[in-house]
C-alpha cells in the first residue's frame, strides 16, 4: 500500500515545516506504518549522505576582493543624492528623537541606546559561543540535567524545555554575562544551526511581544514575560526562529499556570 499524501507530508515533517496538529497526526501514523517508517529512514539516510558528501563551497578570496572592489567603485560613482533609510532602525531612531524633543527628555533616547547595546552584547555572546568549545558548560539533551545544573550558579532557576519533538533539540547550557549580570544561556539546535537563548529575571516589568533585529547575518529576537527577559540569537532563518520563539513562549505560559 502506498501513501502518496503522506510522502509529501513526511518530507515537510522532516523539514520541520509541518504544523503542530499535522505533525502529531503524522507521528501517530508513523508509529503504526512500517512502510512510512522505511520511507522516513530512507530520507534520513539521504540527508546524512548529502551532508557528508556534497560540499558547501567557500567563495574564493579573489572573488570576494573583486566584489568588494566593484561595490566600492560603484559607491564612488556620482549619483544624485538621495535620502537613504538604514533598514527599519532609522525611522525608529527618528521617531525616538522626535519624541525626545517633544518630551524634552533624554530618557527615551537613552533607553533605546541601552536596548541596542544589549542587542550587541547578545550578538557578541552568541558569536563567541559558536567558537570551538564555547557553546556549553553542561552538554545534555535532557532538560532534567540542564536545569539543575544552574542550581548554585545563578540566583534563579531558568525554565528549560524539551522541544526535540518539534525539531529543536536541547544541546546544553552555560553561564554567560550580559547586561552586567550572570545569565542563563541555553543552546538549542536546528539541523546544523545553533540557537542561543539568554534569559534572566525581568524584574517584574510588563510583558512585551517579540522584537526582531538582524545584523551580520544573525537574527536577534527579544521579548519579556512577567518573569523573564528573553533574548534569542541565531543564524537560523527568521520564519523558523520565530516559530522557535513561539514554542518557547507557549511552553512558558503553559508552565506559568499555577502548579
Amino acid at each position, binding site marked *: 500500500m502506498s501513501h502518496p499524501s503522506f*510522502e*509529501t507530508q513526511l*518530507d*515537510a515533517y522532516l*523539514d520541520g*515545516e509541518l504544523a503542530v496538529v499535522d505533525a502529531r497526526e503524522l507521528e501517530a501514523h508513523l508509529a503504526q506504518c512500517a512502510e512510512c517508517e522505511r520511507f522516513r529512514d*530512507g*530520507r534520513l*539516510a*539521504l*540527508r546524512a*549522505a*548529502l*551532508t*557528508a*558528501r*556534497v*560540499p*558547501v*563551497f*567557500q*567563495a*574564493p578570496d*579573489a*572573488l*570576494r576582493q*573583486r*566584489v*568588494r572592489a*566593484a*561595490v*566600492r567603485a*560603484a*559607491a*564612488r*560613482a556620482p*549619483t544624485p*543624492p*538621495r535620502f*537613504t*533609510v*538604514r*533598514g*527599519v532602525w532609522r525611522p525608529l531612531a527618528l521617531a525616538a528623537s522626535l519624541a525626545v524633543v517633544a518630551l524634552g527628555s533624554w530618557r527615551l533616547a537613552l533607553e533605546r541606546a541601552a536596548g541596542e547595546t544589549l542587542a550587541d552584547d547578545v550578538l557578541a555572546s552568541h558569536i563567541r559561543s559558536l567558537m570551538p568549545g564555547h557553546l556549553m558548560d553542561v552538554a545534555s539533551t535532557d532538560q532534567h540535567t540542564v536545569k539543575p545544573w544552574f542550581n548554585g550558579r545563578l540566583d534563579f532557576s531558568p525554565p528549560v524545555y524539551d522541544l526535540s519533538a518539534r525539531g529543536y533539540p536541547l544541546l546544553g547550557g552555560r553561564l554567560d554575562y550580559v547586561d552586567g549580570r550572570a545569565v542563563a544561556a541555553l543552546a538549542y539546535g536546528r*539541523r*546544523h*544551526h545553533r540557537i542561543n537563548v539568554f534569559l534572566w529575571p525581568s524584574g517584574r516589568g510588563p510583558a512585551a511581544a517579540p522584537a*526582531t533585529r*538582524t*545584523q*551580520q*547575518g544573525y537574527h536577534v529576537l527579544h521579548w519579556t514575560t512577567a518573569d523573564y527577559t528573553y533574548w534569542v540569537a541565531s543564524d*537560523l*532563518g*527568521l*520564519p*523558523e526562529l520565530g516559530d522557535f520563539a513561539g514554542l518557547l513562549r507557549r511552553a512558558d505560559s503553559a508552565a506559568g499556570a499555577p502548579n
Partner: protein
Amino acid sequence: MEARESARFEAVVLPHLDAAYTLARYLTRNGPDAEDVVQEACLRALKYFEGFRGEEGQSARAWLLAIVRNTAYTWRRRGRAEALATEFDEAQHSGAIEDEHPDAALARSAAKEALGRALDELPAEFREVIVLRELQDLSYKEISDVAGVPVGTVMSRLSRARARLEQALREEEGP
C-alpha cells in the same frame, strides 16, 4: 550610491557570499562561471539594494540567492555557460572542483561519486531546491521566494529530487 549605503551593503549582503557562490557553483557546475555569475549578481544586488529593507521574514541571504539564481538562468540563456544546458561531463566536472574546501575535496574523492553525480544530473529546477534546502537550510517559504514558484511546487520538486537521489544512493550501495 552613497558610501554609507555601500558600507551597509558590505555588512548585510557580503556575509552571504559563500552561500551565493555555492548556489552558483551548483547551478553552473563549474567554478569560473560561478565566480562570474556571483560577481554579476552582486552588482545587480547593489543596484536594487535601496529597495531592500530587510523587513521581517525577508532575509538578506534569500534575497541575494534569488538574484544569484536569476543571474545564473540569464547566463544560461545567453549561452555563455553551456555547462548549465549540456549533459554532465566527467572531465569538466573533475577539473572544476579544485576550488572547494580541501577537506571537502578529500571527502569527495574518498566517497563514491554516484550521489554528487546524480545531483549534477538533476534538472536545474530540481538541483536548486536540494541545494537551497539541504546545503543552505532555507525554509520552504524562502525557497519559494528564491525560485519564484509556489510553496506547493517547492514541495513536489523536493520530493521528486529526493526520490531520484535516494535511488542513486541505493544503486551505489547496491549488490
